């Protein structure tokens, strides 16, 4: 393997944002890059691709000033023969141009027939259905995030087709897929992988896939074993405060962990349900229903007792977060029948009851996006001020609590650090800990593993299991089915669906 090694340093004024000296790209092979959110995976990849703005940042690549690096023939060739799928589809697409036009913009227009790619990514939807999605100007809420993401993937695949037909094999390419499946469920993720490996089998490209989705590993081992010699699993880890290093990620370690005996579901004395939520409810004019089976034939109340973990599954956009917010009284659900910690709750329950008796005392919730649910202007220490804790949080107990997920990094400087300055993974850990320290009877977790690296995933699940053993009732909402199917007993899995 003749990897191209890059050393990258990105600074903003006096502050070093990220630096690494072993970012390897293996020509014409596929690299999966894991690592916690915000550690610098995207930024380093953008720097190597030549996408950063030299006016905003002070960047050097392989010791060269950025302008000089971008002007190199090899960098220009990479840009000409490649495609970068950005993490956030909305920011990648031009809101002043129809998606269908963007699919044929520039060199993509050389690929005259994209029906096969689009048909595959939309699971053979008919042309009129496709037109409804593609003949629109992208707006924040239209089309859906998943559809925008598939449009971007289609662009990358079109570019691959163009290269296959116009350039000889061996020309430098660098296809970067930054969280390509972030807005896709497992079914569409698998479609993406299927297309990718088909194109790759026809003509090898250099591919870098940045992802947090560790379950992709199982898919690779199950369906693409033949490609494994040409697949590299890497992880970006923090070497010190600013420097990061790329290390090999052990697929076997992940697969072995999945194969381990799952934690026992009922530990404490079960007793009366902590949460008994009616099977049917309506929010914003939508009728939603909870089922015990994937075929949606057995409606069932969502019941969680002490020491139990329940897991709610549903495709993206059905209303998993809506359900969590309805349980927490943040959305007013109609036809609601709920019993929470012995208290009967209806749609008419007063806000004061939630404020004084439930929130932070009986039940709490971890929101999906740490970036949006934490006060970024506050410090780590201030994040824990104002919580209704049974015992006051002293500096020592705070350090102890944070130590569960941050280990040795909990210094005075860390406590005084602004939340905005933490990496995405650190923010998510803080987001989780803020709710966990409350020790409520019911803890709802919406995508608790968002942005975490494998080490943190294991730690978070250990902590949650520990809380469960101590009697807490946990409700999990996550698209990461592989991990939670392993973590939660089948009998506590629920399926949410829209019903008439």
């Amino acid at each position, binding site marked *: 393997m003749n990897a191209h090694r890059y050393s990258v340093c990105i600074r903003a004024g006096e502050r070093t944002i990220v630096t690494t000296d072993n970012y390897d790209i293996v020509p014409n092979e596929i690299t999966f890059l894991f690592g916690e959110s915000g550690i610098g995976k995207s930024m380093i990849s953008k720097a190597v691709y030549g996408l950063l703005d030299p006016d905003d940042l002070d960047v050097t690549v392989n010791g060269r000033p950025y302008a000089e690096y971008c002007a190199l023939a090899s960098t220009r060739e990479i840009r000409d023969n490649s495609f970068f799928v950005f993490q956030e589809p909305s920011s990648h697409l031009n809101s002043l141009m129809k998606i269908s036009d963007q699919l044929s913009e520039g060199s993509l227009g050389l690929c005259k027939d994209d029906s096969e790619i689009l048909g595959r990514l939309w699971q053979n939807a008919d042309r009129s259905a496709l037109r409804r999605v593609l003949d629109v100007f992208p707006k924040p809420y239209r089309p859906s995030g998943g559809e925008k993401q598939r449009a971007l993937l289609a662009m990358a695949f079109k570019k691959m087709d163009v290269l296959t037909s116009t350039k000889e094999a061996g020309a430098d390419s660098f296809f970067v897929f930054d969280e390509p499946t972030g807005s896709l469920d497992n079914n569409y993720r698998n479609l993406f992988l299927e297309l990718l490996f088909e194109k790759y089998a026809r003509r090898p490209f250099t591919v870098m896939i940045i992802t947090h989705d560790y379950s992709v590993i199982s898919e690779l081992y199950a369906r693409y074993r033949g490609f494994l010699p040409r697949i590299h699993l890497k992880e970006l880890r923090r070497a010190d405060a600013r420097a990061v290093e790329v290390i090999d990620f052990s697929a076997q370690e992940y697969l072995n962990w999945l194969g381990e005996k799952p934690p026992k579901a009922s530990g404490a004395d079960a007793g009366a349900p902590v949460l008994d939520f009616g099977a049917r409810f309506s929010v914003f004019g939508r009728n939603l229903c909870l089922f015990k089976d994937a075929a949606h034939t057995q409606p069932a109340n969502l019941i969680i007792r002490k020491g139990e973990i329940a897991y709610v599954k549903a495709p993206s956009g059905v209303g998993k977060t809506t359900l969590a*917010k309805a349980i*927490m009284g*943040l959305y007013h659900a109609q036809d609601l029948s709920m019993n929470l910690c012995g208290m009967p709750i209806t749609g008419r329950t007063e*806000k004061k009851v939630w*404020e004084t008796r439930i*929130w*932070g*005392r009986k*039940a*709490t*919730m971890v*929101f*999906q*996006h740490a970036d*949006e*649910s*934490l*006060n970024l*202007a*506050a410090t780590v220490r*201030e994040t824990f*001020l*104002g*919580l*209704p804790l049974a015992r006051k949080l002293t500096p020592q107990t705070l350090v102890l609590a944070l130590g569960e997920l941050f280990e040795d990094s909990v210094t005075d400087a860390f406590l005084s650090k602004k939340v905005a300055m933490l990496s995405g993974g650190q923010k998510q850990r803080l*987001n989780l800990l*803020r*709710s966990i320290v*409350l020790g409520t009877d019911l803890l709802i977790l919406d995508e608790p593993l968002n942005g975490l690296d494998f080490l943190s995933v294991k730690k978070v699940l250990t902590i949650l299991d520990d809380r469960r053993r101590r009697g807490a009732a946990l409700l999990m909402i996550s698209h990461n089915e592989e991990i939670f199917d392993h973590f939660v007993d089948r009998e506590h899995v629920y399926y949410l669906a829209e019903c008439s």
Partner: protein
Amino acid sequence: MKQLLQKKDSRWLGIWVVGMLAVSIWDILFLNKPALGQVTAGFLNTFCVALLVMVFTLVMAWGVTLALHFLDAGKNRTPYLLLTFALNLVRSIPQVVGILFGYVGVSALVEAGFIRSPVLIFSLLALSISLFVFIEFVDLLRERIAHFQKLDFYNAMRVCGISEGRVINFDILWKNSRIHILNKLISVFGAAIFLQCSVDFIISVGLSTDVNSVTLPATMGSLLAKIDSKQDILAIGYTLTHPAYAGNLFFEHLMGLTVAFLVVFTLMSVYHIANGYAERHRL
């Protein structure tokens, strides 16, 4: 120092300080003692009232914002509607007219002998200006709260049991809006000087001797309205047709020129400081 000067707000603050020092030195050297005393007193009084306006505006706006927020969430809508109506009523009165009536009231109290202390007079003057300035500050604070209430940030904190008062006061207004608040306060400072000078000038020039500002402390507006200052300012126009007279402006017409310069230069500096601050913090 170089870094400091690169920031527009710091640079203009520096320019203002240097300008004030230069004028002070020039006036000490060339302005007669009684006039110098009046200009100094006028400037300090105006400055103090403007600072008090900032404080009162902040306190009143913060208090009213909280009152509106909690009344809005309450079951009984009457207090909320009454307070909103009262605020809209104040909002409908032109600022200068409202402040003018406030001054008339303070003058009347002074004339009647109810208040004598300069501190109390300053406070009442500042209060009457604040009353007609603070509502736009309330709008800003309410906008900030509404913005954060739409985000997960607010609900995420509430479901953790953090009290609404703390989320609003500490997390939203203090931690996430203090830059906006400070920027607005700088503008309020400028507006206070402008309104004060305008109203003082109107009172000093236009009102009858029955209700006059003689008993009120001297401010830059009242100094500007003095006959000496008016003549000094007219002299500027005279130099346009008689350029050779320009040199005399800086020696023989110093009082009016100084007052006019202080008002215009301070307002211009405040404008640039507020703009620079807003640009630096990308508001």
